[in-house]
């Protein structure tokens, strides 16, 4: 029996660095975190999407709060802003863009204000002064107050109302009153009635850490003053100053100026660490497939009331990319977009000591490649997870437990159940049929019928190879094992000469073409050429076709399958996500072994696409759909009128492979296989059988335990009167609860296992 060496220790101080650049460039393909189009166009970086979401939900207070984050005087901004966001709104492509500015205006006029002014705040120690009046000084004072600077404004006006009125003639009475209220609520000191000339300025500036001025004051005091617009700064005098015309210029200017004040207050160069300022390009992708409500809510002369604003805000489709999450149940399970998940999985591989918390997600991806097709940027999560698995294997950090059963199954396929023979009567063959391990495990009769047909109708001899293509080792990230498997198959195939391989499974076809030199084709291609065999089952009823993930990007295979189904009289119903966009059935990438919960969700989602019986051309798909209770057929079952087993358990899948080999040896090659005879008999309760399947315990494991008991007599008699025996097999200890039914007959009631060793301890 095959064994795999368990890793020796959890203390392996080794990491295999994938370059940070490599993972960054992979992760950057995902645009999930890119800003929506509206925010990207906003120089103030308003979180427009969140504001509209809150407004659409009727949470006007929160919506206004979000707006006030960038607009200390929201009414002034909403009346004077040129609204660059509206022109780039994605909805413009299908109708009217969202009337963002009108919504903002309604919020500024009608939404309940939060009373931040009353909350006690600790102020900064550095002080700032603003000289002059107008939009820039007003906004800058607002920004600095928000940042908690003790701030003093020196202006010519005699009171607050006059100060506010300067440069805001467009405010009507009601709006003016509202903004005046906001201004009064802010913690700003005013010195009114100042005559600001050079002498006055020089006298006052000494009392403050940072000084700012309107463009007009700056020019009065320093006739040679020029504003560096990126910083809103006149460096020779260390003066923060305004420039430009209009509301948006003042608001954006004040934002930049406030950042410059921050840097100056910390004695830093104002040029450093400013991040990206102003409008930016965004790479965000949004599907407009379901965008509705193409016209704006009508705008009355006085602007929206809150109700209309809510309706208009609700038209926003909340732009974001989720193409992959829509299609992949695995990504939805972990509720993460691939850009982030890829980074986390990468970081997981770099942990030297401690918990590798991302092992489960890393091993739950089916490596199916669907995301790469549906993602507008071709994000390849399969590559990330596959690479990460190989990385973990190379540093001996990869747990064996999640994949061991599947790996042993691969070794079983290529050892006890392996068969490679030329067709009887031939020395060398033109072809070799490679049905794949799952076909032999699930549908031995179908394999037999297919092989007989190929032998009969193809010229030049058809050899047979029963085994596993190595996909299992590859999926597990066990590259050395995969190499060994490939070398082994290469040798065995080599013995047959340059026989063309006829694969029965699209994944085998793909895997084999990667490493064998002989040509590889699919049995579906052969059937297309030689036609269906006589007696192929006619099936004049609709079925849903599930494309195998192994045939992704393989148009020829997808077409051949459809042709054959049509020849069989099948009406194929179209499902969403078919062809290259097809999801994996849940078997791929060993998800079905490493994470059954996720695998079940993936299968469930496959079946949600249609109510019809499913037609597939990969035995693993066929089996998983049947297991989930759906009527499920493999194309070859129909072609050969030879059915697969309905939901065989793990032991039956092994038994089927062995029996297929034995029967073929006996029937075709007249070889009598050596049978291992047991000198006791075993039967299982239904409960035991189900339990063993669930716990991945094979009848072989149980028999090993009973064999040991038979020889040693070592067992426990438990409270329920059952015998309990155990044996270490490979990396696990198996326990079997059984009763004696006569001298050499056992009835198995329960079975369980653990991987830890257990030993008596002295002292």
């Amino acid at each position, binding site marked *: 029996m095959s064994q795999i060496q368990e890793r020796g220790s959890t203390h392996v101080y080794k990491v295999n660095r994938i370059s940070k650049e490599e993972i960054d460039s992979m992760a950057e393909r995902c645009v999930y975190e890119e800003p929506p189009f509206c925010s990207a166009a906003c120089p103030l970086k308003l979180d427009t999407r969140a504001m509209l979401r809150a407004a659409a939900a009727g949470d006007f207070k929160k919506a206004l709060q979000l707006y006030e984050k960038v607009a200390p005087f929201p009414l002034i901004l909403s009346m004077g802003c040129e609204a660059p966001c509206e022109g780039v709104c994605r909805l413009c492509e299908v109708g009217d863009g969202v009337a963002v500015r009108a919504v903002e205006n309604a919020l500024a006029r009608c939404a309940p204000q939060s009373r931040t002014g009353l909350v006690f705040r600790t102020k900064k120690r550095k002080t700032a002064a603003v000289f002059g009046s107008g939009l820039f000084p007003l906004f800058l004072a607002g920004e600095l107050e928000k940042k908690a600077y003790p701030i003093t404004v020196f202006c010519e006006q005699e009171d607050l109302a006059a100060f506010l009125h300067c440069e805001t003639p467009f405010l009507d009475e009601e709006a003016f009153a509202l903004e005046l209220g906001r201004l009064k609520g802010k913690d700003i000191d005013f010195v009114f009635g100042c005559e600001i000339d050079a002498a006055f300025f020089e006298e006052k500036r000494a009392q403050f850490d940072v000084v700012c001025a309107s463009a007009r004051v700056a020019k009065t005091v320093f006739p040679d003053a020029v504003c560096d617009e990126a910083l809103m700064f006149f460096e020779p005098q260390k003066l923060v100053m305004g420039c430009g015309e209009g509301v948006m210029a003042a608001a954006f200017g004040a934002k930049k100026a406030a950042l410059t004040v921050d840097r100056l207050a910390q004695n830093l160069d104002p040029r450093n660490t400013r991040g990206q300022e102003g409008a930016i390009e965004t790479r965000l992708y949004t599907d407009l497939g379901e965008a509705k409500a193409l016209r704006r809510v009508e705008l009355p002369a006085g602007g929206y009331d809150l109700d209309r604003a809510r309706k208009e805000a609700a038209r926003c489709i909340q732009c974001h990319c989720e193409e992959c999450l829509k299609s992949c149940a695995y990504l939805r399970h972990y509720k993460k977009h691939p850009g982030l998940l890829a980074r986390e999985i990468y970081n997981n591989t770099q942990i030297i000591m*401690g918990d590798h*918390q991302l092992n489960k997600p890393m091993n739950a991806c089916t490596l199916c490649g669907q995301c790469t097709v549906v993602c507008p940027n071709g994000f390849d999560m399969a590559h990330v997870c596959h690479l990460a698995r190989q990385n973990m294997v190379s540093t001996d950090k990869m747990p064996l437990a999640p994949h061991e059963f599947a790996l042993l199954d691969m070794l079983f396929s290529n050892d006890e159940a392996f068969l490679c023979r030329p067709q009887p009567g031939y020395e060398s063959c033109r072809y070799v049929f490679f049905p794949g391990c799952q076909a032999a495990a699930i549908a031995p009769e179908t394999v037999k019928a297919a092989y007989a047909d190929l032998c009969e109708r193809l010229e030049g001899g058809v050899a047979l190879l029963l085994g596993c293509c190595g996909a299992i080792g590859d999926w597990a990230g066990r590259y050395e094992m995969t190499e060994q498997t490939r070398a082994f198959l290469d040798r065995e195939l080599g013995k047959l000469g340059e026989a063309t391989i006829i694969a029965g499974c699209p994944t085998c076809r793909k895997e084999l073409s990667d490493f064998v030199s002989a040509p590889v084709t699919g049995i579906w291609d052969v059937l297309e050429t030689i036609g269906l065999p006589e007696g192929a089952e006619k099936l004049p009823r609709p079925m849903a076709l599930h494309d195998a993930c192994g045939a992704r990007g393989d148009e020829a295979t997808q077409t051949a399958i459809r042709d054959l189904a049509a020849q069989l009289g099948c009406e194929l119903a179209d499902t969403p996500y078919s062809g290259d966009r097809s999801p994996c059935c849940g078997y791929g990438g060993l998800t079905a072994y490493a994470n059954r919960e996720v695998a079940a969700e993936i299968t469930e989602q496959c079946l949600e696409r249609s109510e019809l019986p499913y037609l597939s051309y990969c035995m693993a798909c066929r089996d998983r759909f049947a297991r989930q209770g759906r009527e499920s057929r493999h194309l070859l079952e129909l072609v050969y009128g030879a059915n697969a087993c309905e939901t065989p358990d793990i032991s039956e899948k092994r038994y089927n492979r062995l029996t297929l080999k034995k029967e073929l040896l006996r029937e075709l090659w007249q070889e009598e296989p050596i049978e291992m005879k047991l000198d006791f008999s075993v039967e299982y309760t239904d409960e035991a059988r189900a339990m063993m399947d669930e716990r991945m315990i094979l009848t072989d494991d149980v028999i090993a335990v009973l064999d040991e008991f038979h020889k040693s007599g070592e067992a426990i008699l438990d409270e329920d009167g059952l015998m309990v025996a155990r044996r270490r097999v490979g990396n696990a200890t198996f326990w079997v609860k059984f009763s004696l039914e006569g001298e050499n007959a056992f009835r198995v009631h329960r079975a369980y296992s653990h991987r830890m060793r257990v030993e008596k301890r002295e002292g």
Partner: protein
Amino acid sequence: MAIEKNYYTIDPQGKLLCVKCGVPLIKGKAKFMYLDNGFPVELPVCPSCGFVYVPEELALGKVASVERALEDK
């Protein structure tokens, strides 16, 4: 003297019998080992032949969860 810590204790209370030796199992010292980590425990042990019994609940419960935790180290 170091105080010995046991991670888990089961007392068979005479309810389990060693089939080979025909004597009841007693609470005895045993050790779980996995990936170079060891855990002292007290389990039902045959006083005569030393058979250590791991009941199903223990194997599927505590033992399985410690295994999972160690595997991800």
